[in-house]
């Protein structure tokens, strides 16, 4: 159940363009709040707030290095979203596999008529 709550939070976190940009930046490598704030032209508290949302969603983790707290992408969090989308695709595909069978049956009589001609 906890996994599910995290997924909800993860997809909600992605609904914000700034947070997507932060993730895109972190995909290139870890960065501190200060480093993240600069290119985004945002205050540190604003960036910290976005990071908090991303951390709560399990998409970003922080590391302690002396006085620095660099953030990085959470492989597990990203993987969980990926797995979920893969599951959705699979479930959809199950329906359409059934539809393939149905369509094969529908097309058959037509082909037979064609053969007679």
């Amino acid at each position, binding site marked *: 159940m906890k996994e*599910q709550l995290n997924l909800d939070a993860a997809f909600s976190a992605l609904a914000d363009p700034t947070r997507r940009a932060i993730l895109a930046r972190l995909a290139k490598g870890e960065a501190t709040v200060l480093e993240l704030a600069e290119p985004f032209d945002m205050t540190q508290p604003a960036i910290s707030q976005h990071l908090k949302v991303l951390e709560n969603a399990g998409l970003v983790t922080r590391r302690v290095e002396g006085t620095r707290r660099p953030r990085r992408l959470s492989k597990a969090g990203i993987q969980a979203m990926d797995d979920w989308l893969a599951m959705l695709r699979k479930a959809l*595909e*199950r329906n359409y596999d059934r539809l393939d069978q149905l369509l094969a049956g529908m097309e058959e009589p037509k082909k037979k008529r064609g053969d007679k001609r």
Partner: protein
Amino acid sequence: MSKLTLKTEGDTHVIVTRRFNASPEAVYRAHTDPELIQKWLLGPEGWTMPVCINEAKPGGKFRYEWADGKGHGFYLTGEYVALDPYSRIVHVERMHLPDPTPDNHVETRFDPDGAGTLMTIRMTLPDAQTRSAMLATGMEHGMEASYVRLEGMI
């Protein structure tokens, strides 16, 4: 080998594509004829669609009810906006879980592709938040059923 693609576009769209080895007419009919819909639009094994009402005409309503035979179920309602046989369907739909989800505007195209059909579903949600919620809690067409099943497995 999966023939299905599912991707997001912009902040509010979800695009699904799938190819079928059948004519656009056949694929279109499988999406609008209740007797045919009941045979495939089911989600995981064990789920059935005991109720399938479908008035395939502009302004016509549809209602699909799914059940797992163990007391679990949910339903979807919608209205047709436009139908161009056998190439395009535009409709609005919402899931009832049991509270209704925000309206999903859906355009489904059936384009000839060699001897088969390329189906393209373009969903438009009211906002990014709603799309996120839809992707997170499971999508239409048996997605919720799959989700319930997944929950049971975890």
